[in-house]
């Protein structure tokens, strides 16, 4: 339960970060520069791009373990209590 809440809270705050990063990235794009050129030279652009990619990774490849934790909790299996000492 605690692991599940931790994953969800971390992801929530990361999503807030991603929203800001995406806005800043969009702001840099509207000038007449292509994304590839921007990424090649501008360190800030690289940071914002990578922040959004990091959050994308967290949502799709880390958060599913919260769902599996939820399923485990719902299973509510009592076998450790039923084993004989």
């Amino acid at each position, binding site marked *: *339960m*605690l*692991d599940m*809440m*931790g*994953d*969800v*809270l*971390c*992801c*929530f*705050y*990361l*999503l*807030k*970060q991603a929203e800001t990063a995406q806005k800043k990235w969009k702001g840099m794009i509207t000038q007449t520069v292509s994304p590839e050129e921007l990424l090649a030279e501008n360190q800030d652009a690289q940071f914002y791009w990578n*922040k959004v990619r*990091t*959050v994308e*990774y*967290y949502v799709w*490849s*880390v958060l599913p373990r919260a769902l599996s934790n939820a399923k485990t909790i719902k299973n509510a299996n009592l076998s450790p209590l039923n084993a004989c000492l």
Partner: protein
Amino acid sequence: MHMKAVTEGLRALMYTSAWYIDMANHGPEANSEKYHDLLDLHIPICKAFGTDQGFDVARTGIQVLGGVGFTKHFPLEQNIRDQKIGSIYEGTNGIQALDLVGRKFTSKKGQLLKVLEKELCWFDNEK
């Protein structure tokens, strides 16, 4: 990438919790109870989730380097040993988890969770 994402997520969690502490103790009186409620849930998660995941990140670091990462040639094996104590002292993680569900969820008739739920609706309220 896993190490990067988890580290950045944990940092966001820690900084936000630190901000809640400032708001609870030095912010407007009206909001103080709300931030204390949020903190009651955040603190065990910061401690237990932070140390568990930190150990996992250190373990992944050694794994990535392979056999030589395991040796004293690299500082990583010191990291993993230093990090292991994190999940044990200042409230063992299993006890933190029991306290979270047993006390924090039931205290104030579930008010802590209601306050957290309101916070998590931040994206809905944006529109």
